[in-house]
């Protein structure tokens, strides 16, 4: 893999850009952080010799040795719990949960330990750690390899939650997460691992957690999404453009905290918003975004806030493609908002 073979410029600022895939950018970020800071360790199920089931950690054990990059027993509670204890004792753990669908067994460690130790101790003990995990659908994995559980974590105060959709953000957000003071749940939209390609500077840079990005400017309507749905959101915007409609496309990148200013400024301008995610509709994170938009921009809205989300069913195997909001469904929601 290029990403692990390149010699990242660990100290200096960002170097020249190369085209990497999303997963290469993730690998490169870990590589550079391991090189930068001796306190950084990478672990999880099968992340060592195997390099992770998606190969996100490929080459890292070879390069940094099994002391810094290692396999754990098959227990997500062990993985998350170990990360908490290591972070409390001064390390900077990057822990992998093999699939976001398997955060369940580590759930209490995340919500009771990682999320609350700073608060409950009055700041005496803190757990700056990163939990990386592939999430989302589109890989014909059925419900245990396709779910989007991010809303559970956005509903848990004390956690920061991010999900990049571009290689550039993937690298920059992961670095920011490793260096920050909080537990960060870092979701990786697995269907973009190799599908998303983009310019990534060699060497060091971070992307601030809490800032969204405008992917496309437009004046007629704002499409807001994050993670795996972004390419389809952009495709929908292109289709709309062909019909003369200019959609602004925002990639939240960070869910907790999320970039209210960016979203509100855009919707104030366009008057219409369509929220796109693939998590089940009820109690999903976009409910909060919708709520804030209607609360803050009630008088400026030209149509109800639209939403395209996952259906409130377990993620199905055969209907994988139908379940996911694709460009057509997103475009249709935009049309409904425009024609309201």
């Amino acid at each position, binding site marked *: 893999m290029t990403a692990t073979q390149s010699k990242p410029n660990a100290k200096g600022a960002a170097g020249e850009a190369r085209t990497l895939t999303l997963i290469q950018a993730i690998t490169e970020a870990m590589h550079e952080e391991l090189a930068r800071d001796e306190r950084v360790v990478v672990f999880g199920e099968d992340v060592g010799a*195997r390099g992770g089931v998606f190969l996100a950690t490929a080459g890292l054990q070879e390069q940094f040795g099994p002391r810094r990059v290692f396999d754990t027993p098959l227990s997500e*509670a062990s993985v998350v719990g170990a990360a908490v204890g290591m972070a409390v004792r001064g390390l900077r753990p990057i822990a992998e949960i093999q699939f976001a669908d398997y955060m369940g067994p580590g759930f209490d460690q995340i919500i009771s330990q990682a999320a609350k130790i700073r608060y409950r101790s009055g700041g005496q003990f803190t757990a700056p750690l990163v939990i990386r995990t592939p999430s989302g659908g589109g890989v014909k994995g059925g*419900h245990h390899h396709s779910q989007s559980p991010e809303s559970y974590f956005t509903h848990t105060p004390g956690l920061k939650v991010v999900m990049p959709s571009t290689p550039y953000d993937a690298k920059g957000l992961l670095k920011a997460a490793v260096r920050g003071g909080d537990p960060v749940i870092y979701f990786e939209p697995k269907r973009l691992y190799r599908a998303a390609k983009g310019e990534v500077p060699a060497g060091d840079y971070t992307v601030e957690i809490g800032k969204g990005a405008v992917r496309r400017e437009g004046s007629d309507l704002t499409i807001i999404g994050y993670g795996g749905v972004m390419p389809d959101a952009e495709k929908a915007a292109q289709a709309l453009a062909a019909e003369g409609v200019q959609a602004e496309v925002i990639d939240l990148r960070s869910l907790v905290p999320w970039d209210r200013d960016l979203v509100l400024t855009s919707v104030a301008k366009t008057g219409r918003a369509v929220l796109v995610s693939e998590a089940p509709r009820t109690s999903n994170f976009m409910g909060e975004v919708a709520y804030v938009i209607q609360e803050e921009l009630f008088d400026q809205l030209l149509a109800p806030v639209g939403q395209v989300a996952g*259906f409130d069913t377990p993620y199905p195997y055969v209907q994988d493609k139908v379940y996911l909001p694709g460009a057509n469904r997103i475009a249709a929601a935009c049309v409904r908002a425009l024609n309201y």
Partner: protein
Amino acid sequence: MIQPFTSDPLQWVAEDGRPIRELPARFTPDVLRDLYREMVRAREFDKKLVTLLRQGRTTFYAQASGMEATQVGLARSIRVGHDWVWPYYRDHALALALGVPMLDLVSQCLGTNSDLCRGRQMPHHFGAARQNFVSISSSIASQVPPAAGNAMAQKYLGVDEITVCTFGDGATSEGDWHAGMNMAGAAGAPCLFVCENNQWAISTNLRAQTASENIHIKARAYGMPGYYVDGNDIVAVMEVLSQVAGDIRAGNGPALVECLTYRVGSHSNADADAEKNYRTREEVNAWLARDPIVRVERLLDHLGTPVSAEERAELISATHREVDEAVLKAEATGQPDWQIMFEDVYVDTPVHLREQAAFLRAEQTVLTDGGVQA
């Protein structure tokens, strides 16, 4: 009486096919031949399904090759369709030997309309009510607490059923494994826990999985006996499992049996090439040499009733035909349509799901009419 907590796996038949202990009378050449045939059937199923996978007709597959003695031996040690089984995702040899029809297994792998599970789960996650073979969840060890509960219900109801719960070696590290084992122990529930210890959890060797000497000793933590068996010796597997199943049925509470075996193939299609990173060719070869099917062949040789080359070839081609026919039959039923997505979420269909279904119906109609007008 079979002893628990032995330091070495119990064996009846050596690798060269010679009995080490007296061969129990029930293992007549006919019985052994039947076991042999069942194991070969499972092995060939593996091969055919891997081919279907390569052809892109299914999307996931987890081979059990090398583990047939454990799974078929287990199926032959319990009461089919009477006892309950909470299996894990590598248990198709078990399913076949329990009488789950080939068509049902193939349909599940293909996600066709003939799938008993209605195309809801990824391939190789079977479920068959008729055989009390409970639908498999991918979430490792999550079947263990429910298996304990299933057994508690059996005890509550006063029926003479037992519950079987299978899992891999890696699964024993999960918290839920502990929770289920301890619950079954505390409740004295009639549950037979079978660890199919193939020594690897994807790329993680048992030695990195736990510092305990072996798996069965963990039974001590739950106040139940732990047995250690050569999982490639179907006679040993059946001798131990049928005695233990009998003890459990008699009301003596749960037990753990560790069957030491090996996964000679890749973990799944996902690591077909990757395994060279984590284990050596020599190790795989050493275990290929301990093949459970070959051991029965040798035993039959030793007993003077060898399997002829023709019999073997015929058996293999019969299985291939069986799979091919099942594939044709399954594919002929077609793929479930989108509506299937909204069914079986609940016993009824609440209003929000009806609305979401209506939304999708409208969308599908538009699409059929020629795409969305953006």
